[in-house]
């Protein structure tokens, strides 16, 4: 790794600017499970990680814009090239069967319910 690379890395990890961006999400639940959408513009499939550790679902992604190398930034609202956000799942969700897909910068994550957790009618007996 050459020195310029080191400097660049340090710049990114210093101060507030290094805190990853929190992607905005929509989350809904229906009988099948939970669906989550996250806005992650500039993220390609190969720069995205969707992982589960214990009961925590973590989305972690790197933004690549493919800028011209000699470009000088003059104005930026997106100043960090990373998205990260975590969610705590519950036991009724099947973490083995999570699926994720990213298209046009929108990540869709589906977390199905365990079979036994799907809604069923419970008969109430009169005692």
């Amino acid at each position, binding site marked *: 790794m050459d020195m310029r690379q080191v400097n*660049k890395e340090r*710049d*990114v990890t*210093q*101060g*507030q*600017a290094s805190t990853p961006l929190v992607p*905005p*999400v*929509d*989350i*809904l*639940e*229906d*009988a099948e499970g*939970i669906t989550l*959408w996250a*806005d*992650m*513009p*500039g*993220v*390609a499939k190969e720069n995205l990680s969707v992982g589960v550790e214990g009961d925590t679902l973590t989305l972690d992604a790197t*933004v*690549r*814009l*493919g*800028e*011209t*190398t*000699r*470009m*000088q*930034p*003059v*104005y*930026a*609202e*997106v*100043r*960090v*090239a990373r998205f990260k956000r975590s969610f705590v799942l519950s036991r009724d969700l099947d973490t083995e069967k999570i699926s994720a897909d990213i*298209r*046009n*910068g*929108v990540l*869709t994550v589906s977390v199905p319910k365990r079979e036994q957790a799907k809604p069923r009618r419970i008969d109430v007996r009169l005692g």
Partner: protein
Amino acid sequence: MYPSLTRFPADLFTDFEGLQRQVEQLLAPPGWPSSIRAASRGAFPAINVGITDEAVEVYAFVPGVDPARVEVSVDKGLLTIAGERPGDMRPESEKVSVYAQERFTGAFRRVISLPEDADHTSVEASYRNGVLKIVVPKRAASRPRRVEIQG
């Protein structure tokens, strides 16, 4: 020089100098004069702007928007990005619970002023991974060129 828009030191913005003349400063600390077209924090879409010797590059972060339905226009030195973003959510009902609804939906429009030396006649736009990249070349006369020293 920083090769990436999103990878540069945070203090860059304290060192504007001549850049401000080239692209209008849209973001300023509270109390400072800011651009009349500055958008409040969290406006959709977020925009980054960079310049090279040849062109002005504008990156608009428009995830989940059909590029065919984004209108990019240049008029009198103003670049306008407009469109509409449909929502993915189903309405809440007996069988559907909504826990978060943070993503932008609806019509959007952002306007930025281009530097005077931009050539408004040949604007190019491309869409990749939810980012709209608009390249506005500079007029040939204003590009830096090497001056030969005679002697």
